[in-house]
């Protein structure tokens, strides 16, 4: 085997040479793509974008590129997000587009690919969108993980990307300048729930933070813990569970042993539902229960009694009532439909009540629209500048971005609303907004058991 | 003595497959190993070349205790074997099969040398024109030759042949016997398990007979073929057969 180790060594040496040689070999410039788009594009290529600012420009179609998770674990949320975006686009185009002061009319078109809910192809597809398909503006995929991969490409080609369905803070701490977040970041997902708890019962001191051991929930809960501790709460349990967990019984036993008054945490849809159901079946004595992601989904109602009293942070709720007046109150610009208009348009188009993912998709479109309107131009630099200076209010809520180099693009305007499942007079399960106080549609049930 | 087997016993579960087998083999001889089916002959081979570790006894090859050593150890020392149920490397060519023997056997050749050896050996066993065929496409007789070629390519000191004649027709048997003699004449010591008696009687210097895992006879071919115990083991007990005969004619 002596010869073999030699072979291995020499291979490593060759490899080192190859690596070194390749280091200097990259083409110096990012040539504009010369290849015509190949087949397989889901939409007919729109006419090429006119050079911005050209005097003869009368009508410009801006192409929005994104990937969607048509298959795989993010399929449902991603589909809702895409539907929301399409609805926005249709409404703008049907209204005749955005008219700029120089008379140019801006309409939109979109192009998207399936990312299969996994990372292997995201960069390939976004590069294709950015270079070959000449997308002018980008929307993120669903989920923080896929978005992180897409952000590298958007930044590299200097394309503006509005992220939606991607709440992690870390993406906005990597020095990007073209990536803007429509969602309230993970770090503020549950802080409102802590405030809600404080307003409901000043005597509660013990909270348990339990979470799915995944990127999103861990970031949310870590921030929530710091916030809760700063508010003087005692965190009696801070523990994760594996993302594949279906059986929470032993975990719940552990929670009971720690004896918290309130539980905050959760993860995604499946585990959240399972957790809530089993916590109820175990009859765990708990006064307050806030759970990530799962509760705002309509199918959470399938849990029946187990859903009653569960609180969930939501990016947006159909009941939320933001109006031009509320925009005026904080000095922001108002844009787009009212909440109920959005809901009825969405129901007319797709037959379902919109989830907050759908609203997020629509909001991403509104953010682009707002930026173009305020830039009064389709020039990418101008749009970028407009986004940096944006202070917008829509049915989805307030939008404003952090522009510091450390957190560029992080959403700082928007905040979560908190819903709670309650029984209405006729005994049906309904979602009520319980926090913040200004938007509340009902008093929170407290304690829940 | 190139090989000494000292009091080797081997059990499979409750079954004693070999019981206190002892034999000494001087260099350059052909030892015939015979016995009815299930007598433990192949098991003895497996113990000698390290496929099985015996529960009792020792195997000493070229002065070294190789009891329980891995098959590749004894292969490197110069022991090669063929199998009763041929084990060709089907998806490799005939030449590559033989090269494996040359590369990893006693002399540890590189590929180029191995290829030359393979050509020679294949010529020697009469498979020269089939070198590029896949081994899986050979017929049984050819596969037997291939096994032999593989073993020879490792330039062994000791060669264990397990029923190389089975399934061959008389003329093939004759030529194989010549081949085996020629190998011995090159100084290779051979143990051959064989059922084709006239052949094994002709080429062997000595014969050991196993029955139920026990050595029931040992000696020159002549001595052994006259040994009543051997005749009984092979043809069945003539007395018993007689008794049966009487019964059947009652």
């Amino acid at each position, binding site marked *: 085997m002596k010869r073999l180790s030699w072979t291995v060594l020499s291979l490593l040496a060759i490899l080192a040479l190859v690596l*070194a040689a390749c280091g200097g070999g990259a083409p110096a410039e990012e040539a504009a*793509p010369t290849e015509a788009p190949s087949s397989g594009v889901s939409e007919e290529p729109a006419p090429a974008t006119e050079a911005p600012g050209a005097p003869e420009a009368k009508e410009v179609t801006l192409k929005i590129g994104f990937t969607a998770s048509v298959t795989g674990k993010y399929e449902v949320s991603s589909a809702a997000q895409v539907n929301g975006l399409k609805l926005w686009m249709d409404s703008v185009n049907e209204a005749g587009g955005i008219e700029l002061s120089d008379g140019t009319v801006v309409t939109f078109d979109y192009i998207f690919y399936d990312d299969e809910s996994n990372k292997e192809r995201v960069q390939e597809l976004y590069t294709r969108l950015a270079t070959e398909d000449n997308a002018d503006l980008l929307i993120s995929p669903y989920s923080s993980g896929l978005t992180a991969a897409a952000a590298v490409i958007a930044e590299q*080609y200097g394309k503006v990307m509005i992220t939606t369905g991607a709440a992690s803070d870390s993406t906005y701490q990597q020095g990007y300048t073209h990536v803007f977040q429509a969602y309230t970041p993970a770090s503020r997902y549950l802080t409102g729930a802590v405030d809600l708890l404080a307003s409901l019962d000043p005597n509660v001191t013990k909270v348990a933070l339990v979470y799915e051991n995944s990127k999103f929930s861990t970031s949310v809960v870590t921030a929530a813990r710091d916030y809760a501790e700063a508010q003087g709460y005692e965190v009696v349990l801070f523990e994760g569970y594996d993302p594949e967990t279906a059986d929470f019984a032993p975990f719940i036993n552990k929670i009971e042993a720690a004896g918290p008054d309130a539980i905050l945490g959760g993860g995604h849809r499946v585990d959240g539902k399972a957790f809530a159901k089993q916590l109820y079946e175990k009859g765990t004595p708990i006064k307050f229960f806030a759970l990530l992601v799962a509760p705002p989904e309509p199918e959470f109602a399938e849990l029946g009694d187990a859903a009653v009293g569960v609180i969930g942070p939501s990016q947006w709720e159909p009941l939320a009532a933001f109006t031009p007046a509320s925009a005026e109150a904080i000095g922001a610009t108002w844009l787009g439909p009212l909440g109920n208009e959005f809901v009825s348009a969405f129901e007319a188009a797709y037959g379902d009540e919109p989830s907050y993912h759908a609203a997020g998709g629509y909001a991403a479109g509104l953010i682009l629209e707002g930026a173009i309107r305020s830039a009064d131009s389709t020039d990418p630099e101008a749009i970028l500048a407009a986004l940096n200076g944006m202070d917008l209010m829509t049915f989805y809520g307030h939008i404003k971005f952090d522009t510091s180099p450390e957190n560029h693009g992080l959403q700082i305007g928007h905040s979560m609303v908190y819903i709670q499942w309650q029984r209405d007079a006729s005994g049906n399960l309904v979602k009520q907004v319980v926090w913040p106080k200004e938007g509340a549609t009902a008093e929170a049930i407290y304690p829940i058991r | 003595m190139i090989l000494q087997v000292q009091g080797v016993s081997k059990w499979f579960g409750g079954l004693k497959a070999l019981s206190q087998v002892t034999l000494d083999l001087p260099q350059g001889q052909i030892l015939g190993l015979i016995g009815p089916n299930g007598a433990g002959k192949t098991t003895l081979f497996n113990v000698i070349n390290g496929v099985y570790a015996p529960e009792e006894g020792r195997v000493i090859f070229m002065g070294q205790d190789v009891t329980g050593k891995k*098959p590749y150890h004894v*292969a490197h020392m110069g022991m090669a074997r063929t199998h009763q149920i041929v*084990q060709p490397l089907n998806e*490799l060519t005939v030449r590559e099969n033989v090269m494996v023997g040359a590369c990893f056997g*006693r002399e540890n050749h590189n590929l180029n040398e191995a290829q030359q050896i393979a050509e020679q050996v294949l010529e020697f066993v009469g498979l020269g024109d089939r070198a590029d065929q896949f081994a899986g496409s050979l017929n049984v007789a050819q596969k037997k030759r291939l096994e032999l070629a593989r073993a020879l390519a490792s330039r062994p000191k000791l060669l264990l042949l397990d029923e190389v004649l089975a399934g061959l027709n008389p003329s093939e048997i004759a030529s194989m016997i010549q081949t085996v003699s020629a190998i011995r004449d090159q100084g290779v010591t051979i143990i051959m398990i064989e059922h084709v008696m006239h052949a094994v009687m002709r080429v062997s210097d000595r014969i050991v007979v196993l029955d139920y895992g026990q050595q029931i006879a040992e000696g020159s071919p002549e001595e052994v073929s006259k040994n009543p115990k051997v005749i009984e083991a092979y043809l069945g007990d003539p007395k018993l057969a007689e008794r049966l005969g009487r019964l059947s004619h009652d």
Partner: protein
Amino acid sequence: MRALRSPGLWLALALTAAAGAWPYFTGSASNREVAFTILLSVALASSLNILLGYTGYVSFGHIVFYGLGGYMGIYLLSERGVSLWLAVLAGGAIAGLLALLLGASILRLRGAYFALATIGVNEAARAFINNFQPFGGPIGMTLNFRLYDHYGGAARALWMVYGVMLGLTLLVILVSYLVKNSKFGLGLLAIRENEDAAEIMGVTAPQAKTWAYVLSAIFPGMIGVLFFFKNGNIEPHDAFRLHLSIEMIVMVMLGGYGTVLGPVLGAAGYQRLRGMLLVSPIFKNIQLAVAGGLLLIIVLFVPAGAVGWLRHRVPVLRKVLE
């Protein structure tokens, strides 16, 4: 070396190099990304082939090396500030080391037991990394965009990573070829065909298997670093995705296991096919089912894969299709 004059090697290398050079000619970043995905698959499939195709051991969890290598590399890049080159070598080294440790143990298992054990190893590694705080636990690690500035900015960095990937892929093919046509490789093939017979012929099987395992693990380790460097972040479920592991086997099977060219064609073909299905208006909703159906047909009717089938049917091609 006689081996280097074989048309089989040059065919595989030339095909890969030609496909790999395509983005340089067009200058299109989009082509480059497509080609990167294909090269990544070719390199992974060819590495796996050293174990699966030559040695006959079905590693279902081979992706563990890619994931672990990627993690090691990203850790060194983002937390320790080492250069990409060192990170790539370290990724390969840690993967090789794990294979060496595992090789001494799980390679004793045969057939389905080995396959199950590799799944177990991958899942254990994923679960472990999910709890391993230095690697970011469930959050993983994200590379700062400014890191790309060391390599001339993101645009140049991505071209550079592509160049390295191309070089690495060619190297994997070369290694795959050299292994197959070496004495070491002959021993592996003998083990694949019949491990017991091989040992009897003197092949030191435990050692040979372990080295084959190590060799087939080093490259995925390096590739993992490249991929996640390009990707900008790494998370446990992306790094240890069992599905990708099985896709690697599928690619090897499609092209023909145990051949040099097979995994190259199999990987390229598989990725093209998936790419087409993904954007096809008819199939995109059931592309997974269509891919499954095609795989089933291959397994049932062309088990030797495309190259293997050709080699059997047209013996003249054996010299060309290694």
